[in-house]
């Protein structure tokens, strides 16, 4: 019971983003919404402002919800291990994504919106083993985002009967792409935090999360998707261990 009260208190004090974080999030949402709605500004070579703005607004809603859920997943997990997340937009990733979008005429979505910094909740972590900020903790915290987006796909699919079909299709596909790109082990993306935190954890979570997203997009039953994703994750985790990690750590002797 004490843990729940403690967690509630942390949530109240440290969960909500600051003004600067919201500002960064808005920049990221506007840029990524433009990328995913690039092909929806009219049909063929005819440019239609009205239709385009409507599609852009729809994309803003989808991207805004997805980014918020992604960020909230990481924050909630962070608070559980007494870290506070600071959202940081990655302008170079956004600009590169926009360049790729223009070159490919919107066919390729490169969604590289942000990373995060971690603050240490000093009083809450007193007495913890490895008291300070460590890479493994950050790696686990980073996983909260893609897992939250997987849950968002499930929620959207459950309530798909009440939502417009085009919205559901776009939201599910966007989250699928976002999960994959966020798991790329390139700083400052979430995948890099997990990779540098623990290679073995990455070897399991990357294939498990990506395969879960693929299975959910393919309309396979939620429980079967989760089971298959774990099986795939374990198989690739073991493969990675026996092929690389086992021999890599035998040392020079």
């Amino acid at each position, binding site marked *: 019971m004490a843990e729940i009260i403690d967690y509630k208190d942390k949530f109240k004090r440290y969960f909500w983003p600051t003004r*600067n974080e919201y*500002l*960064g999030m808005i920049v990221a949402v506007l840029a990524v919404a433009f990328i995913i709605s690039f092909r929806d500004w009219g049909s063929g070579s005819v440019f239609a402002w009205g239709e385009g703005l409507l599609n852009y607004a729809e994309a803003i809603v989808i991207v805004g919800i997805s980014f918020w859920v992604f960020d909230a997943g990481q924050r909630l997990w962070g608070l559980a291990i007494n870290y506070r997340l600071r959202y*940081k937009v990655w302008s170079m990733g956004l*600009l*590169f994504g926009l360049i790729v979008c223009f070159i490919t005429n919107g066919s390729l979505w490169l969604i590289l919106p942000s990373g995060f910094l971690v603050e240490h909740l000093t009083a809450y972590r007193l007495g913890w083993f490895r008291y300070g900020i460590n890479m493994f903790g950050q790696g686990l915290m980073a996983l909260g985002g893609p897992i939250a987006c997987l849950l968002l796909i499930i929620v959207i699919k459950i309530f798909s009967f009440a939502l417009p079909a085009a919205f559901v299709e776009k939201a599910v596909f966007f989250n699928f792409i976002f999960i994959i790109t966020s798991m790329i082990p390139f700083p400052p993306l979430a995948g890099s935090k997990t990779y540098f935190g623990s290679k073995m954890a990455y070897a399991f979570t990357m294939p498990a999360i990506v395969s879960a997203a693929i299975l959910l997009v393919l309309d396979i039953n939620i429980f079967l998707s989760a089971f298959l994703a774990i099986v795939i994750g374990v198989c690739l985790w073991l493969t990675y261990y026996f092929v690389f990690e086992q021999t890599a750590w035998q040392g020079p002797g």
Partner: protein
Amino acid sequence: MVEFFRSWAEVAAFAFMFFGIFIAILSPSAFISYIIVLLSGMIAGRIFYERRKNTRIAYTMVTLGFVAGYAAGAFFRHFGNILVILVLFLIGIIVMYKLSERGFIPDTWF
């Protein structure tokens, strides 16, 4: 290997020159070409802002390599005026540098 580390900026500038040509050739129109060079300038502006307290000569070389390649690619493709490309690239650098300086984009660097 030591030689490479001693002159990595030249190698990177050369590689980015080809990257610039490649990007310019892929651009579907002159207008898109201008937008891409503006966005590329903004990336360069961000890099210059991050390096404002350190040496910038290597990054300047890489940037010049890229913009030279891009201008050459646009010239051969007949997509856009070279002068406009250079001006837009410069505007991109200045705009992003100023935005970063004034804290409008609370950004992260790797």
